[in-house]
């Protein structure tokens, strides 16, 4: 039992923190939001140079992993720095391709992993049961979609773009020789491997299309186009998609934790300096107690994140995402309130994290979905001692 990051793991996180601290990330985020992806892509390339993407890939493909603990610690740093772009989606794609290869479908890994590991390319993806929107498809070299059999039409049905009709998608699927049958809505399906159908299909899809603005201007949302190029199909795709979805949820939880930490740190500094009634506002109990609660939420989310990275179990990952997502959003509310009116301006860099917290809380499994997963993952009743059900415990 040694439930703390090892020296090596902490060193890696520190390396990233110092790289990001010197990278003037806020400027890259503002550029990204304005449609200039250059600085963000250059930063991503430097991050990949530390081995970041390789942590998600197996050694057979020049990877270092998969190492979920290291990657989770790294994504806390990405969240803290406020890095824009489909980082979670790229890492989840690397996991997906590695898992597929492990299950015998090696062609997609051979084709796409080299570019992803060097950081030359970013990827984005949609998975069954996840959001229909592909994040930042305009900045990603490749846009992937895993569709369950019969799900080929789901994205278009669920989204606001009625012209990308179900008929087109089904026709495209049929034309490419991949069977499209059955029915089912991605929205009602759990983001979990056992709930994905056995006949998943991996597609390289056209990512271009209308960019839908997110509440976070640095996030661009795209409905993947119909058709595309089928890459693999069958139970291996479904299983790999389930694993990739868990990683996406885990790494989003990690980002949330980092976002919350950044919001807390900036707010603590602010309330120490801002004076009213002749004293720093941070000396007032009402202010202190809100910040104490913010720290409490974050510090209890952190070990859940670590445990989720260790086990990658559905229940642990859902618990981590739920807790870190809620902690980050609560931190945003507190940061806004304690900054007062200046916190409500987009000019202040704080806004980069304020606007990130809510979408991340909901990405790859919002609180409601995660709570349902936690209850679904409870051990069977037989695992409980019978006598405890009615016993009274005091003191």
């Amino acid at each position, binding site marked *: 039992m040694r439930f703390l990051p090892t020296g090596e793991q902490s060193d890696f996180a520190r390396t990233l923190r110092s790289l990001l601290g010197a990278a003037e990330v806020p400027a890259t985020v503002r550029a990204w939001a304005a449609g200039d992806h250059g600085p963000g892509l250059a930063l991503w390339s430097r991050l990949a140079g530390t081995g970041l993407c390789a942590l998600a890939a197996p050694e057979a493909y020049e990877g270092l992993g998969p190492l979920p603990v290291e990657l989770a610690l790294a994504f806390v740093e990405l969240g803290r720095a406020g890095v824009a772009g489909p980082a979670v989606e790229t890492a989840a794609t690397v996991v997906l391709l590695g898992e597929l290869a492990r299950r015998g479908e090696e062609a997609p890994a051979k084709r796409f992993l080299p570019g992803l590991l060097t950081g030359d390319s970013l990827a984005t993806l949609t998975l069954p049961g996840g959001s229909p929107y592909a994040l930042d498809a305009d900045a990603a070299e490749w846009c992937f979609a895993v569709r369950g059999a019969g799900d080929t039409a789901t994205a278009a049905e669920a989204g606001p773009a009625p012209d990308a009709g179900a008929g087109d998608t089904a026709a495209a699927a049929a034309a490419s020789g991949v069977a499209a049958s059955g029915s089912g809505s991605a929205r009602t399906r759990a983001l979990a491997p056992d709930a994905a159908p056995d006949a998943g299909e991996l597609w390289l899809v056209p990512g271009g299309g209308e960019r839908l603005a997110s509440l976070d201007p640095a996030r661009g949302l795209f409905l993947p186009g119909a058709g595309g190029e089928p890459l693999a199909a069958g139970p291996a795709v479904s299983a790999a998609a389930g694993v990739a979805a868990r990683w996406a949820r885990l790494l989003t939880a990690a980002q949330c934790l980092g976002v919350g930490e950044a919001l807390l740190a900036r707010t603590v500094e602010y309330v120490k300096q801002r004076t009213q009634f002749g004293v720093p506002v941070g000396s007032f109990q009402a202010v202190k107690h809100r910040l104490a609660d913010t720290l409490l939420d974050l510090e209890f989310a952190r070990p859940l994140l670590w445990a989720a990275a260790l086990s990658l179990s559905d229940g642990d990952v859902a618990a981590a995402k739920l807790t870190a997502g809620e902690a980050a959003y609560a931190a945003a509310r507190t940061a806004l309130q304690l900054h007062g009116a200046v916190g409500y301006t987009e000019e202040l860099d704080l806004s980069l994290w304020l606007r990130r917290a809510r979408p991340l809380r909901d990405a790859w499994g919002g609180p409601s979905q995660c709570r349902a997963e936690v*209850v679904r993952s409870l051990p069977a009743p037989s695992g409980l001692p019978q006598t405890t059900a009615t016993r009274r415990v005091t003191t």
Partner: protein
Amino acid sequence: MDLDHSPEVAAFRAEARAWLREHVPDAALPSLETEQGFAAHREWEAELHAGRWSAVSWPEEYGGRGADIERWLVFEEEYWAAGAPGRVSQNGISLLAPTLFDHATPGQRARVLPSMASGEVIWAQAWSEPESGSDLASLRSRAERTEGGWLLSGQKTWSSRAAFADRAFGIFRSDPDAAKPHHGLTYLMFDLRAPGVTVRPIGRLDGKPAFAELFLDRVFVPDEDVIGEPGQGWRIAMSTTGNERGLTLRSPGRFLATAARLAALWRERGDPADTALRDRVADAVVGARAYELFTWAGATRFAAGGEIGAESSLNKVFWSQYDIALHETALDLLGPDAELAQGPWAEPWVFSLAGPIYAGTNEIQRDIIAERLLGLPKGRR
């Protein structure tokens, strides 16, 4: 990083589980906050002691097993999962004993610890006073020097277990002229049945005498019952609050077991369509897991020689809030049966309501978190 126990720890767990399965009473004991229940719980302490399970973290010479923090946490998981009774000797074992290990003489340890481990002597705490709650250092009860010892006078209150306990420990003002309120305090142990002591039980919200007022009128305490140097009482009392005590006041095992009972109740009585209640069950399950993991991280740091310090305030605020939410969720699942005072969740709910108040109010804990962990400036409380 890992969450794995060694084979030795796993064997320790198996031994504890087997013993508990054999010995835990089938029927719940009467409430330990009643005279009859207190006696029944004292007998249970004797049985635990006979199996050498009453104070597993103590050295073997005092009836313990020399268990490290990892084994202690494992034992607690097994203890509460087995549905074993509440610990009537908790104040002594987890508050006074660590102080004795750090500050008492070998003679004092030999005299006090064995009867504490066996439940023969049950200890109560004597910290708060009518005018000294969160501002404990303002306390006024006096210890005056006399031949061969000290004379205690004054009033203590909210003394948990004191209605039926045997002895008490606390701090008293021995030097009224000391420069600061934290100075001039002395840590003493005294007999609740000594001449000059009047114990007035106080009914808590449900009427049970869970605590008491102590009136002290020139109560003689021999020098041998002073812990550490006279005048050093504050430092001694505080030295263990932030360390082991931060980890051990409420073990995760207790909440893991209660959350498991809540999950069982959900399966038994929950309406699957009631997602609002289902979500609260999920929060209770996640909260117990979070507290467990937070504690393993703290235990790892502690085992490596680290200090726990002000982080124990995070711990205290978390479990005290969590405990209330957990029990409220259970009561909501029970519907009309929640109101029954004899129900299995009723008294624990009443008890949970006290959590944010005792052991340092959550307001004080949040001040500590803000000032010592976040570095915010001190201000008026």
